[in-house]
């Protein structure tokens, strides 16, 4: 699945970029509108506060506008925008220190390879269909599960699996190594799998189209 708006094709985007670079500022919002939700999600992953994330998303857009002439066509515009957002959010977190301290595990940021993560054992796994995402409470539960991850896992997971940056771009945006991205991504995915399974036990997906009484595994 691609995250870009289907109607927003690459040629139109290139055209918009050129026009904005040449001074057609009023086209800037049209250029960035398809990415506004991704920009917000990236800021939220780092700041964990909706108001701060929204402010940062707006500031990142203004920053992108101010620097649009520095954008080079060989890069993906969406990636460039997300990288600016991540940078703004990290700066805000350092400067304002408004994000509460997280768990001990997060501060003990020594090696990602120290502890192996053993996933929960199930007899089988039946897929949770993407149609479930039509329900707001399901999306909310998934977002809550994500929010419980330690910062270093959450940031990598959001950039890689929700923003669809590649491994290298994720590493560059967060200033960590490719190996760290891979290790953290693995851990994040396995932990989320276990959290979804726990969610079943708590009835998150109770109205999904499975046979009555059946769990998905």
């Amino acid at each position, binding site marked *: 699945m691609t*995250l870009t708006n289907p109607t927003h094709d690459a040629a139109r985007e290139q055209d918009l970029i050129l026009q904005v670079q040449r001074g057609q*500022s009023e086209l*800037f*919002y049209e250029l960035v*509108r398809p990415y*506004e*939700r*991704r920009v*917000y*999600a990236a800021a939220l992953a780092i700041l964990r506060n909706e108001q701060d994330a*929204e402010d940062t*998303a*707006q*500031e990142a*857009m*203004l920053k992108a*506008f101010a*620097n649009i002439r*520095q*954008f*080079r066509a060989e890069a993906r515009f969406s990636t460039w925008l997300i*990288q*600016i957002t991540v*940078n703004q959010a990290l*700066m*805000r977190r*350092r*400067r304002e220190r*408004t994000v509460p301290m997280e768990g001990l595990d997060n501060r003990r940021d020594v090696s990602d390879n120290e502890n*192996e*993560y*053993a*996933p929960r*054992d*199930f*007899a*089988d*796994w039946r*897929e*949770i269909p*993407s149609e479930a*995402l*039509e329900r707001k409470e399901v*999306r909310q539960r*998934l977002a809550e599960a*994500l929010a419980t991850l330690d910062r270093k896992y959450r940031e990598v*997971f959001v950039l890689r*699996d*929700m923003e*669809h940056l590649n*491994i290298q771009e994720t590493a560059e945006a967060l200033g960590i190594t490719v190996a760290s991205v*891979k290790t953290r991504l*693995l851990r994040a*995915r*396995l932990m*989320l*799998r276990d959290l*979804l*399974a726990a969610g079943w036990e708590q009835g998150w997906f109770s109205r999904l189209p499975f046979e009555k009484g059946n769990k998905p*595994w």
Partner: protein
Amino acid sequence: MVENTFRCEQVWREVSNYIDGEVDAALRSSMDEHFRTCKRCASVLAGTRNVVQLYGDERMLDVPAGFSRRLEKRLENRLTHDSAVKGSRWSSWSAWLVPVAAMALIAGGLLLTNNLTHWHFVRSQHAEPAYKIPPDLVVVVSDGAKLFHVPGCPFIHDKASERTMTAKEAMQEGYVPCTRCLRQYLKTGMSGHSATEVAEGGRVEEEEREETLSVAGH
């Protein structure tokens, strides 16, 4: 779990790379074989794939109500401001005045040396101009106010008309630094500050420089 040449722990370690296509052909083949015979690992693979599929869906990117409208308004405010600055700068000037203005600026520049602020009018006659403030520092101003602030400062008046710009632009419009959030850039703030707080100011400046480099790199 079944006996297999490949241990389950090895599979768990590589399952994420497997999904991303980041394993070589030999490893993929061994893992495929393992998944066929080990139910637990097959469940780990299926569940992890399910996670990637669900969270990767665009519907997971929720924004708060009114987000788009507020973003558009803020961008519009910025664009309106930019065009107003352009208009006031150029509309009443004839082309032949440009070289004259350039000469005047060069002469003025020699006198101004390090101080960025003295050649701007200031909105508050009683306020102190900024001292050694990084010109690219991102600040926030609002219409009708006199001060500029770091984003998020609790002393910003009239948040509805808030605009973001650089410190240099804010000073060019006559704004002066907030005595609370930008105290380290006031001469009085410098003398009254602890060494740590002054160092903090330096750190922020450093971050801004890093950020500029990072943006410029793309």
